[in-house]
């Protein structure tokens, strides 16, 4: 049995959400590593979009701190405007996109803008970046978050990035062209939309208890019928992560 960190497990779980030949809107931090793992294991023909305007069909071998770091441009397939990548996503060409968040609610809505009332907030968060666009326009939204009760709420204070809104067919009613949560990968487990598009637990990370998850979730979380343990990283997956992030800058906890 190999040793791994929670960060590494999350990267691997995220990587497995990427299918071969898919176009992936790659987010900062763990998603950049997830894209690398997917490309070098089961999804060799996946294509990565980076919101600064970079398209890559192979990941940089360097540890990136931002998408615009020089190694992410060298050897790219396309360097272009942010709008061009957004056009392709608006047209339905992006299969999945990664975002993080400060808060998520039971319908998968994400808040990265304001804690409290936006007119007089308790906490000013950095904002959307491209996350609201990825949540609006990609076919499947993949969310990566720390699993804490204050972050997993019945209802977020502010919808920066729409999940299923108030549940059911809310997205369609709003006029959103497609999309919704594909998976929410947390520090404790993985959730997917179930009945009425409410998020349910589909897997729990090795060593985590269901009670722990319930204690750290701000709503009465349901478990899916095919509920399982999150499969641990394979050696070849860890190898990719550690070749890029040898000091555990993003994945060490």
């Amino acid at each position, binding site marked *: 049995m190999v040793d791994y960190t929670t960060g590494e497990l999350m990267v691997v779980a995220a990587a497995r959400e990427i299918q071969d030949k898919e176009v992936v809107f790659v987010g900062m931090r763990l998603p950049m590593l997830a894209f690398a793992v997917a490309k070098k294991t089961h999804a060799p023909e996946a294509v990565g979009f980076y919101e600064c305007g970079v398209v890559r069909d192979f990941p940089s071998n360097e540890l990136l701190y*931002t*998408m615009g770091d020089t190694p992410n441009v060298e050897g790219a397939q396309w360097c272009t405007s942010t709008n061009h990548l957004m056009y392709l996503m608006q047209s339905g060409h992006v299969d999945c996109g990664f975002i993080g968040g400060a808060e998520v609610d039971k319908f998968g809505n994400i808040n990265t803008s304001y804690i409290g009332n936006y007119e007089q907030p308790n906490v000013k968060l950095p904002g959307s970046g491209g996350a609201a666009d990825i949540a609006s326009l990609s076919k499947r939204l993949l969310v990566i978050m720390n699993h804490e009760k204050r972050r997993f709420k019945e209802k977020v204070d502010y919808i920066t990035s729409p999940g299923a809104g108030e549940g059911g067919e809310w*997205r369609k009613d709003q006029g959103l062209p497609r999309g919704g949560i594909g998976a929410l990968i947390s520090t404790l487990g993985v959730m997917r939309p179930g009945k009425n598009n409410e998020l349910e637990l589909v897997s729990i990370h090795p060593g985590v208890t269901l009670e722990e998850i319930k204690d750290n979730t701000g709503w009465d979380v349901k478990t899916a019928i095919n509920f399982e343990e999150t499969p641990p990283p394979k050696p070849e997956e860890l190898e990719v992560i550690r070749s890029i992030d040898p000091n555990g800058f993003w994945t060490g906890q």
Partner: protein
Amino acid sequence: MEDKTQSLEQAINEHIQSGDSVVMGACLEPMIPFAAAHELVRQEKKDLELIAPISDILIDMLIGAGSVRKLTAAWAGNVSAGLGHNYRRSVEQEIPFRIEVEDHSNFSIGLALLAGAMGVPFLPSRSLLGTDILNSNKTMKTEEYEGEKLVYIPALRPDVTVLGVQRADKQGNAHLWGNIGVAQDAAMASKKVILLAEEIVDGEVIESDPNRVLFPGFKTTAVVHCPAFAHPSPVQGYYQRDHDFFHSYHKETKTREGFLSWLDKYVTGVKSHEQYLEKVGNDRIAALKIKNERFAAPVNYAAE
């Protein structure tokens, strides 16, 4: 054609006034014109409306310095280290004062600038439907068009874009490479464009590759020769990102006092961009320099 070169001090003094709307950081994380932001603080320009998708710690620094009246952005913080302490202090505690925030996503700000560049009052999009961005930013409206819901994003027409480029000629024609972000649309949408260039080159160099030009030279107001203008952010082919600088900023600006001392050290306590670079350390700047060569494949423009 007209020689538009000026010193950084002249260009900022002459072409950016207190109260102006200014785009800085149009390429998102790289090529952020930090040198211009520092000069704005030194010249005590106030009440600025900053417009940019992201711009890393440039926004946070200017908010802390009290230069900003309004922020029109998709994201503001410290890209590799997290939240921006000055931004939080301003909005949560009114320190030094509360700025106005116009929330955007990367796409909505990109479309707003494109609408400005196109000369139309708005552009339609399918993004942001159902988000609270449409509540906190009341300029964007949900409309029905032939049975479909669309968000109409009004044009932004900034007073000035400060754009960093690898090389420019004295007339304001320039080459920029790497990711483009919203640079082209921001420059096209703005009333004035100030270029900060790593190198000033002959017009022939720019004319040798007209497809690499993003906007016509007549849109450029001033050209500033300003090597390492983007430090601590990177410039493709010239220098890497100074990651540690961003992490140190994050640690050192946790308190207001810490920020003021940081600002004094790097911005108000120096007189010029050259002195800033000395303060950062010439060895440190030299270590960031790109030493390798990976040249674009040859392209022949010959006509005969």
